[in-house]
């Protein structure tokens, strides 16, 4: 055996996992945009957690009314002015972060779980099951998502949980199609055939071999979807099927502020800009993640 075995010089053993992480982080740092995205997302999450606590006028957030101070223009005391019942717009917007971001997370998580399940089963099982599931997914996709979400939200009634559920129910098809595509592609990979040749059970092949390799596109889509989920939540709020007063939420804030344009324009600026920044941050982060996790979609 001697002449055969030529032990390959093993590179320094060292903990391997740390090195892989370092390499990924280095690639992430490469693009300044994803760093900017990560910074904005950190800021948004910070406000999502402490928004209502840090707000300069916490009792405004809990719905206190001081009608004497209605529609004050932006000033040192109120950087973004006050609204129609005298509440400080900046505080409401900061507190609004919590609702919008939480709702965004809720939609993305429920949507992706549901969608991944449907997509994985359809992609892996194939044949009739695939046809049935995919036709249903296409069906839900043909109904304009906002109208579907509105109908469900109206049916369930207003309130935070109903809104999140309504949007998730019209959100999962996106993931179903993505995951099905990935699973179909992965199914043809050689290492999957190898796993089946070894005798692995279909479930093991799907969950141990196929899905882990479909993870990165799902994560990328989740981070990109966060932004769109926040927009849809605000959209529902804008239409008036959103959260219940006095909980501050960007969409509802913008919807009421809208009627005071152009004279009291500041009431709309804060929630609008906050929404833009949050979605911008998540999109940048999503782009950065795509380059790190999923090199196929090169920058």
């Amino acid at each position: 055996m001697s002449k055969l075995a030529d032990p390959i010089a093993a590179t320094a053993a060292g903990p391997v996992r740390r090195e892989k992480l370092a390499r990924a982080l280095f690639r992430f740092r490469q693009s300044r945009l994803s760093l900017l995205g990560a910074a904005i997302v950190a800021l948004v999450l910070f406000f999502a957690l402490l928004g209502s606590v840090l707000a300069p006028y916490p009792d405004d957030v809990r719905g206190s009314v001081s009608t004497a101070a209605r529609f004050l223009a932006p000033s040192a005391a109120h950087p973004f002015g006050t609204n129609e019942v005298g509440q400080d717009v900046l505080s409401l917007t900061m507190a609004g972060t919590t609702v919008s971001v939480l709702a965004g997370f809720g939609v993305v998580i429920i949507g992706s779980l549901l969608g991944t399940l449907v997509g994985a089963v359809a992609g892996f099982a194939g044949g009739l099951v695939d046809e049935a599931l995919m036709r249903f997914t296409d069906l839900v996709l043909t109904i304009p998502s906002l109208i579907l979400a509105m109908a469900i939200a109206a049916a369930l009634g207003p309130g935070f949980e109903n809104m999140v559920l309504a949007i998730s129910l019209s959100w999962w098809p996106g993931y179903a199609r993505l995951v099905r595509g990935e699973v179909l592609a992965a199914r043809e990979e050689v290492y999957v055939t190898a796993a089946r040749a070894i005798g692995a059970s279909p479930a093991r092949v799907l969950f141990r071999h196929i899905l882990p390799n479909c993870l990165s596109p799902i994560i990328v889509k989740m981070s990109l979807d966060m932004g769109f989920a926040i927009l849809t939540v605000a959209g529902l709020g804008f239409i008036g099927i959103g959260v219940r007063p006095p909980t501050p939420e960007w969409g509802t804030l913008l919807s009421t502020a809208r009627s005071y344009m152009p004279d009291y324009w500041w009431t709309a600026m804060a929630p609008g800009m906050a929404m833009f920044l949050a979605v911008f941050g998540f999109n940048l982060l999503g782009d950065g993640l795509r380059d790190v996790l999923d090199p196929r979609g090169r920058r």
Partner: protein
Amino acid sequence: MLQFILRRILLLIPVIFGLTIIMFVIARLLPGDPVGLAAGANATQAERQALATEFGLDRPIWAQYGTYVAGLARGDLGRSLLTRRPVAQDIATYLPATLELVLAALALAVILGVPLGLLTALWRNRWPDYLSQVVAIGAISMPRFFLGLLLQLVFAMWLMWLPLGGRLPIIVFPPHKVTGFLTIDALLSGNGTIFVTALRHLAMPTIALSLSPLATIMRMMRASAIEVMGQDYVTTARALGLPRRKIVTKVIARNAFSATLTVIGLYFGWLLGGTVLVETVFDWPGLGLYATKAIVSQDMMPVIGVALVSGLIFVVANLLIDTAYGLINPKVRYA
């Protein structure tokens, strides 16, 4: 080719049934009392009952579904409790407005998005590319309704260059109705001033609606162009001395565009949904507004009608896109 189109059209039948079933289930969940609303505040119980029977709302759900589907065959989409008009007639009045807006937005998005995507791909990793990437992501992140508000605030309220909303100044009689698209009808009837006014009304809602699809189509085109540039046949083309201009147009653009086409199909559906917010901001008398109003007053017949019509348009649009894809990308034909 024909056999494929026939098969896809046959596929519409289950889509119609599927759509209506889903919407009827949702309608069932509605707690409210739409009849009470439509009958008016002071109507007695007897009057409400009369209205309910008139609209057949007191019959069991599957009976209502039966008559609804039977009506479908005759193109009757039921009647709106609110406007008392047949839904089909309402949709006929409001649909052209939405379609005009959606097509204008999509056209703008494709006409600007595709070349921009190609250009940024060609100047990859240089400052114009980075700048366009940031602007594109910014455009996608901008909430449509907030953008609409800003446009309205700046151009209509302060600068007064553009009208606040709506499709046409009221005093102007709309041109003879051919397609229902004001811009096209104005052109057909050769009336320049109306065409210009209609365009000025169309400007802001189209920009608000098309910014996000434009950015996405640009990014998708850029990504697929970059991928194509990495393909061997591009290197071969360069190795064989093809001039750069021909390589960009015939090799890169053509292959990249065929990949981007499918996104445009998907976006058509998204746009139909997306108009709801833009129509609300710009007083655009389209399907979105009609559906919103109906949903809020839980008048479900119009909602089902709108969902059905936009669903069908989405399917037909995708059918067109797939056939176009087949034409451009011959490989598909013999797959």
